[in-house]
C-alpha cells in the first residue's frame, strides 16, 4: 500500500477515480454531523435497503457536507453520462422513489435542487456529464450563487473516510510537488506570494510565520493545527475536518516539510466526536499509505501527526494557552515575547495555524501563490468559509471570495430572516467580534473593513439577528460566555469582565442607572487595552459595538425599563404583553375570560386600553407574531377575544357596571388643569388616563366630533361608528370635557393653553396627504385617500366614477379600495412591490380580494392620462422589477421600460400622510425634517417644558394602538411631573388571576370570527366581522400557554 513515488500516487489516483466514477450510478449521502442530526443516517439505511430490495446495482457511499445546511439531509446522485444531481431535504420515505428512478437510469428530479456538470477540485477535475436542462446549475441557485469553493473544494463530493477518493481528485499531489522542489524556501515563497492570512481570526500572514520557523535552528520543531473551534456560532472547522480530513493532513505535511518540523499536533475540540473519529482514521490511512511516518514518499522527510482532544476551554484557542494545555497544564496564556516561533511547545520553536489556513495550502502549492492572490482583495486574498446561522432562511456554510459585500451574504445567499421579520444585525466573529447593524451591511467582508467598523472576521461565525433579538442581551450573552471562559490569570479580564457582566445584568434586569452605561464603556476600553491575551483583548467587542450601534436599546432598557425584542424577562409579563404597544395584560384577561369573569376582564382591558372596541376590530395585532402558541399550532386570536369582551359590555347590563368600576378607580382631584389638542386615539387615551388620575382635562378638537382617524378615516364596515360613540361616552363620563371646532393655530392658541393649564398635550395627527409627484396629480379626479375616506365617513356624496385605481399598499389603500367598491366602483390596487411586502393587514388584503378588488403588483404610477377636455381617462403605470437588496432587507423596485395604461375615471393616492407642522413651528416647538414634532421618546415632552406631544404627530402615520400608547405614556409622564409620583401603575391595579400553566397545550384549533359572505358585503357598509361567540371566546382563551406564569414548573418536584 505504501506510496513511494509519483507512479505509486498515480496508481492510487486511478483506483480512486474508479470509485468516484464507477461506471454505474453512485449515490452519495451527506454524512456530516448536521446531516446526521437531520436524519442522514436513516436516509442512508433506507437507500441501502431499497437498493437491495429493488435489486439495483449502484454504489452507495457516505460523503461529507456540501454546505447547504438548511436543505439537509443532502444526497447527490450521479448516473453515468449525466450531471450530478444534488437532492435536498431527503427523507427515508423518499428512498424508494429515488432508487426506482435510478433503476431507470433517470435522476430523481423531485427533490433535486441543482446539478453539477463538472467540478474543479482545483487539484483535479471531474467531468460528470451534461444534460438535465430542467435543473439549475449549482451556482445558479441563490445559496451557492457567488460562492467560490477553495477550502470546501472536495466537501460533499468525496468520501471523507477513503484516502483513495482524496487522491483521485488530486490529493497529496501538491505535497509530492513540494517534496520535489530543490529548495524548501520556494514553498514558503509561494505561500508568501499568495498573501494567505491566518484564518483563525487574527489574520497574520502565514508565509511570514512559516519563514520565521524555518529560519529558527533547533533540534525539534513543532507545527500545531488549531482546531479548537470554540467560537459559539462557528462550525466550519468541524465540517472541514469531517468532510475532507486529508486536505488538512496534506496542508500540515507541506508546512512541516517547508519549515523543518517533525511533529504535528492537531488540537481538536472533544465536542466534535465525528471530526475526531474521521481525522484519526485519516491519519491512520495516511500512515498506511506512507504519507506520514518515516521517509515519506521515499524521501528523508519524517513527520508524524498526533491528535489531542481539547477538554472544553475556549481560551485554549489562544496559541500560548494551547501550548500550556498541550504541556498538561491549565490553559492559561503566557506573556509574549517569547513568541512560539522562538520558544513554543516544550520550549521548542512552534508554529500554530488554524484548520482553514492549513487547508488552503495544498491549493496554493498546486495552483501557485499568484493564482491564489488574484482571488479576493489586494490585502485579503483568497476565500473564507463562513457559517451563516441564526435568524436566516438559508443556513449553511458559505465560502466566499474576501471582499464580498455583506448584504449579498445576508439577503442574496441567506435570503433574509425566515419569519419575514426585519434583520437587525449580524454578529460576526463570535465572542471576540462585534455586532454589525443592518445599516452597515454594504461593508465588504475582509480583515480591514470589518475591523474598521469594530467587528472582526474571527473564525467566520456569522449569526444573524432580527428584531426579536435584544442587543443588550446579546452583549450580556457574550460577556457571560467570556466571563465563564476567562482563565482568570490577568486582572482586567477576570475581575473586569465580572463587573461588566454585573452591570449588563443590571441593565437587562431593569435595575440600572444612567451612570452604568459609562462605567460599562470605560471598563470595556480598559479590558480591551490592558488584558494579557486575545480573549480579554477582544471580549469587550460585543459590548463596545452594541453600545456604538444600538445605544438606543440600552437606553430603552435603562429609561423605559423596556426590552422591545421581548428577551429580557424581568422587563415584561409575557411576549404578547410586551409586543402590545398598550401593554395589555393579555394572558390575564384571557384567563378571566376563560373563567367567565367577564366584568373583571372588561375592567382590566378598559384600564389597559380605553378604546377596546375599536382596537379589538382594527389593531395590527403584533401580539400574534410573538405568541408562543404558534410553535404548537397557530397563534391565539387575542384581538378577537378582547373585542368579544367589549361587545359584551356594549350589548348589555355590563356597561353600567364597567362605568361604575372605572369611576370608582378615579383618584382624588388634584386641581391640575390639562389641555389636550386633538381628540384622536392618542388624545383620547391621554385624556382617559389623566382624568382617572384626578386631573381636570379638556380636549380641544378641530372637527365636530371626537375620534380622529377612527371616525373620519376608518370605514364603517370595519369600525361601526355607533360603537365608537359608546366608547367615547365612557371617556366623557369620567369627566373629560370636549370642545369642538377648535383648531390649533386658528381657534386655539398654544400660548393661551400653556398659560391657562398646568400641562398641554398635542396630538393633532397627520392630516396632510403626501404628494406622489406625477403629472396630472392636481386633477380634481385624483383623490387622496384620507380626503376620500373622510368624505365618505361624513356621508357626503363623492361623485366617484365607474373605474377607480388606488395607488399604494397600506391600510389606507385597502380601506379606500373596499370603500370605493361599496360605492359601486370597479377597483384596482396598484402597488410597486409584491404582495408579501404590503404593509396593510394581511386579512384585509384577502378580504378585499374576495370582495372583488383587483390587485396589481410591481407597478409604479407615472402619469395621469387625461382626454382633451382634461378629464381623467386612465393612469400610466411603469412595470417594475425587484432589483438588488437595499439595506432594509427589501428588494429595490427598479423601473423597466414597459409601461401600461389602466383606464379609469378616478385615482386614489394612498401613499402616506404627514402632520401639519406649521402651527408647531410658529409656537417654537422643534419639528423634525419630516414635519413630525420632536419629543422625548419616553416622556413625550417637547422642547417647551410641560408641553407634550404624541400620536402620529410625533411618530408619523402609524396605527391606532401605537398612537394610543404615546398618549398613555405622556399621561403617565404628565402625572409624574405634576404630582411628583409615578401613579399610573397603581391606577392600573392588579387582578386576582389564577396562576397555573396548562401542563399540555389545551383547546383545539384557533377560533376565528364569522365573516359576512363576500357577495353580501360588497353592496353595503355593514360590519364584516361578526366577532367570536361566547363559546369561541372561552375556547380561544383556554388555548393560552400562560407565558406570564414563570415559576410554576418547580411545583412538580
Amino acid at each position: 500500500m505504501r506510496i513511494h513515488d509519483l507512479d505509486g500516487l498515480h496508481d492510487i489516483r486511478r483506483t480512486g477515480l474508479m470509485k468516484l466514477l464507477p461506471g454505474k450510478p453512485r449515490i452519495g449521502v451527506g454524512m456530516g454531523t448536521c446531516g446526521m442530526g437531520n436524519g442522514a443516517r436513516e436516509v442512508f439505511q433506507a437507500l441501502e435497503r431499497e437498493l437491495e430490495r429493488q435489486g439495483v446495482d449502484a454504489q452507495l457511499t457516505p460523503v461529507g457536507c456540501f454546505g447547504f445546511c438548511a436543505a439537509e439531509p443532502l444526497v447527490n446522485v450521479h448516473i453515468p453520462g449525466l450531471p450530478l444531481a444534488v437532492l435536498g431535504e431527503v427523507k427515508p420515505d423518499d428512498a424508494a422513489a429515488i432508487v426506482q428512478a435510478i433503476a431507470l437510469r433517470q435522476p430523481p428530479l423531485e427533490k433535486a435542487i441543482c446539478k453539477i456538470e463538472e467540478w474543479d477540485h482545483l487539484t483535479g477535475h471531474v467531468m460528470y456529464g451534461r444534460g438535465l436542462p430542467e435543473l439549475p446549475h449549482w451556482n445558479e441557485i441563490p445559496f451557492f450563487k457567488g460562492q467560490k469553493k477553495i477550502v470546501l473544494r472536495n466537501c460533499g463530493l468525496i468520501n471523507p473516510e477513503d484516502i483513495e477518493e482524496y487522491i483521485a481528485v488530486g490529493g497529496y499531489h501538491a505535497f509530492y510537488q513540494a517534496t520535489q522542489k530543490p529548495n524548501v524556501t520556494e514553498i514558503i515563497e509561494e505561500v508568501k506570494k499568495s498573501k494567505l492570512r491566518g484564518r483563525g481570526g487574527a489574520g497574520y500572514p502565514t508565509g511570514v510565520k512559516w519563514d520565521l520557523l524555518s529560519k529558527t535552528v533547533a533540534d525539534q520543531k513543532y507545527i500545531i493545527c488549531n482546531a479548537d473551534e470554540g467560537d459559539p456560532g462557528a462550525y466550519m472547522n468541524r465540517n472541514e475536518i469531517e468532510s475532507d480530513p486529508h486536505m488538512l493532513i496534506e496542508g500540515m505535511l507541506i508546512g512541516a516539510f517547508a519549515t523543518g518540523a517533525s511533529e504535528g499536533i492537531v488540537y481538536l475540540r472533544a465536542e466534535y466526536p465525528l471530526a475526531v473519529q474521521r481525522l484519526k482514521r485519516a491519519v491512520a490511512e495516511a500512515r498506511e499509505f506512507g504519507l506520514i511516518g518515516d521517509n515519506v514518499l521515499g524521501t528523508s522527510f519524517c513527520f508524524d501527526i498526533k491528535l489531542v482532544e481539547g477538554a472544553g476551554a475556549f481560551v485554549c484557542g489562544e496559541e500560548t494557552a494551547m501550548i500550556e494545555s498541550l504541556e498538561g497544564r491549565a490553559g492559561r496564556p503566557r506573556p509574549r515575547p517569547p513568541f512560539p516561533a522562538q520558544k513554543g511547545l516544550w520550549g521548542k520553536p512552534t508554529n500554530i495555524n488554524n484548520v482553514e489556513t492549513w487547508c488552503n495550502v495544498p491549493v496554493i502549492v498546486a495552483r501557485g501563490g499568484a493564482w491564489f492572490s488574484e482571488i479576493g482583495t489586494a490585502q485579503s486574498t483568497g476565500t473564507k468559509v463562513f457559517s451563516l446561522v441564526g435568524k436566516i432562511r438559508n443556513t449553511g456554510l458559505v465560502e466566499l471570495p474576501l471582499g464580498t459585500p455583506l448584504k449579498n451574504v445576508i439577503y442574496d445567499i441567506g435570503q433574509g430572516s425566515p419569519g419575514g421579520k426585519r434583520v437587525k444585525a449580524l454578529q460576526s466573529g463570535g465572542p471576540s467580534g462585534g455586532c454589525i447593524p443592518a445599516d452597515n451591511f454594504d461593508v465588504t467582508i475582509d480583515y480591514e473593513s470589518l475591523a474598521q467598523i469594530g467587528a472582526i472576521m474571527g473564525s467566520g461565525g456569522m449569526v444573524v439577528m432580527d428584531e426579536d433579538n435584544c442587543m443588550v442581551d446579546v452583549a450580556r450573552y457574550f460577556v457571560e460566555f467570556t466571563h465563564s471562559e476567562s482563565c482568570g490569570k490577568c486582572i482586567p479580564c477576570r475581575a473586569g469582565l465580572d463587573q461588566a457582566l454585573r452591570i449588563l445584568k443590571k441593565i437587562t434586569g431593569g435595575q440600572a442607572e444612567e451612570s452604568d452605561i459609562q462605567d460599562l464603556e470605560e471598563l470595556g476600553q480598559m479590558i480591551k487595552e490592558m488584558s494579557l491575551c486575545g480573549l480579554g483583548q477582544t471580549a469587550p467587542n460585543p459590548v463596545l459595538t452594541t453600545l456604538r450601534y444600538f445605544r438606543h436599546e440600552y437606553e430603552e432598557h435603562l429609561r423605559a425599563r423596556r426590552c422591545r425584542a421581548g428577551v429580557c424577562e424581568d422587563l415584561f409579563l409575557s411576549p404578547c404583553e410586551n409586543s402590545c404597544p398598550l401593554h395589555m395584560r393579555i394572558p390575564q384577561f384571557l384567563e378571566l375570560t376563560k373563567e367567565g369573569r367577564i366584568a373583571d376582564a372588561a375592567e382590566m382591558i378598559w384600564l389597559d386600553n380605553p378604546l377596546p372596541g375599536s382596537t379589538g376590530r382594527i389593531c395590527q395585532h403584533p401580539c400574534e407574531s410573538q405568541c408562543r402558541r404558534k410553535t404548537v399550532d397557530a397563534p391565539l386570536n387575542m384581538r378577537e377575544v378582547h373585542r368579544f369582551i367589549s361587545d359584551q359590555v356594549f350589548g348589555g347590563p355590563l356597561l353600567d357596571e364597567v362605568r361604575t368600576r372605572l369611576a370608582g378607580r378615579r383618584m382624588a382631584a388634584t386641581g391640575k388643569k390639562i389641555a389636550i389638542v386633538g381628540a384622536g386615539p392618542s388624545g383620547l387615551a391621554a385624556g382617559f388616563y389623566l382624568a382617572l388620575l384626578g386631573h381636570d382635562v379638556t380636549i380641544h378638537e378641530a372637527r365636530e366630533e371626537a375620534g380622529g382617524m377612527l371616525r373620519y378615516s376608518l370605514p364603517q364596515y370595519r369600525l361601526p361608528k355607533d360603537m365608537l360613540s359608546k366608547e367615547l361616552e365612557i371617556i366623557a363620563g369620567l369627566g373629560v370635557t370636549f370642545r369642538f371646532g377648535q383648531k390649533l393655530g386658528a381657534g386655539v392658541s398654544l400660548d393661551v393653553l400653556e398659560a391657562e393649564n398646568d400641562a398641554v398635550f398635542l396630538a393633532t395627527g397627520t392630516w396632510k396627504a403626501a404628494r406622489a409627484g406625477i403629472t396630472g396629480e392636481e386633477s380634481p379626479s385624483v383623490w387622496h385617500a384620507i380626503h376620500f375616506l373622510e368624505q365618505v365617513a361624513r356621508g357626503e356624496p363623492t361623485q366617484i366614477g365607474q373605474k377607480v385605481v388606488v395607488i399604494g399598499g397600506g391600510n389606507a389603500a385597502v380601506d379606500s379600495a373596499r370603500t370605493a367598491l361599496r360605492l359601486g366602483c370597479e377597483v384596482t390596487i396598484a402597488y410597486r412591490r409584491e404582495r408579501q411586502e404590503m404593509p396593510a393587514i394581511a386579512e384585509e388584503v384577502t378580504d378585499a380580494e374576495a370582495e372583488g378588488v383587483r390587485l396589481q403588483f410591481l407597478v409604479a404610477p407615472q402619469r395621469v392620462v387625461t382626454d382633451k377636455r382634461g378629464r381623467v381617462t386612465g393612469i400610466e403605470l411603469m412595470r417594475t422589477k425587484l432589483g438588488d437588496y437595499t439595506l432594509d432587507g427589501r428588494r429595490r423596485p427598479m423601473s423597466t421600460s414597459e409601461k401600461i395604461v389602466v383606464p379609469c375615471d378616478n385615482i386614489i393616492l394612498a401613499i402616506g400622510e404627514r402632520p401639519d407642522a406649521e402651527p408647531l413651528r410658529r409656537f417654537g416647538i422643534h419639528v423634525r425634517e419630516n414635519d413630525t414634532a420632536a419629543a422625548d421618546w419616553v416622556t413625550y415632552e417637547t422642547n417647551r417644558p410641560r408641553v407634550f406631544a404624541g400620536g402620529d404627530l410625533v411618530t408619523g402615520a402609524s396605527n391606532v394602538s401605537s398612537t394610543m400608547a404615546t398618549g398613555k405614556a405622556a399621561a403617565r409622564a404628565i402625572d409624574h411631573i405634576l404630582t411628583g409620583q409615578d401613579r399610573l401603575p397603581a391606577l392600573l391595579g392588579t387582578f386576582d388571576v389564577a396562576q397555573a400553566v396548562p401542563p399540555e397545550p389545551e383547546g383545539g384549533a384557533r377560533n376565528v370570527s364569522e365573516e359576512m359572505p363576500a357577495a353580501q358585503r360588497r353592496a353595503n357598509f355593514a360590519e364584516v366581522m361578526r366577532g367570536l361567540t361566547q363559546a369561541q371566546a372561552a375556547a380561544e382563551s383556554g388555548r393560552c400557554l400562560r407565558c406570564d406564569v414563570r415559576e410554576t414548573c418547580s411545583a412538580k418536584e
Partner: protein
Amino acid sequence: MPKIITLKIAGTEIKADEGSTILDVARTNDIFIPTLCSFKGLSNVGACRLCMVEVRGVPRLLPACATTIVEGMDVTVDSPKVGKYRKMIVELLLAERNHICAACVSNGHCELQALAQRLGVHHTRYPYRYPRLKVDASHVRFNYDPNRCVLCTRCMRACEEVEGARTWNVMGRGINSVMVTDLHQPWGESPSCTSCSKCVHVCPTGALSEKGCAVGEMVPRENVFTYLKSMRYSGR
C-alpha cells in the same frame, strides 16, 4: 559582555544591558512602575497588568515586565490613560475579595494597600463581591486567607521554581479561580508542602501569613528569599 542599549524611560535617558526588560531597567534606575505579580527571582507571568506602559510608536500598551528593551525606545510610564486604567485595576482588586485593611495582619506592609495609596485610590466605584472564602488555618505555622488573595501566583511560582515542592496551584478558572494546596486539601495535611515559608514571604498581601501575627504584624522577610535567590543565581 552583553550589548549596551540606550533608551528613554519617563523622559530620562538610560543605558542598560540588552535583554533586560523595561521593568528591570526602571527598577535599577528608581523609576516607579507599579506591579503586583512580578517578583525578582521568579518568572514573569504578566498577570496583573499594572506595569503596562506606553512606548512611542507602538499603538498598544505593553507590559513592562515582559517587554525587552530596544535601542532608542521611548517609554512613558504613567500617561493619563495608563494612570486611569491602573486605578481601575486596583479598584477591581479591592472589590473582588475582602480587603479590609483595619483587620488585616499585613496592614502597613501590604503591597496592594501601598499601591492604592500611591495611585490615589480612596474608594472603589465597583460594588464589593464578598466571596466568603474559607480561611485555612490548618498549617501549624501559617495561615491562608484566600479572601485577601489577589491571585498574583507568586506563592505558586516560589513553591515550584525555587522550592520545587509544587504545592500551590490555581483551582478553577475566571472569577472563581482560587489558590489551593495540592488536591484542595487542608494546607496542614498537604503531603508536598515542606513548610519552607517562601510562599508566605513573597505574598504581596495578607493572604499568606505567619501564625500568631496580630493586625499589622505580618512583615514579609524578603531576605529569606534573597538568600535562596543568590544561591540559585550562583548555581547557573
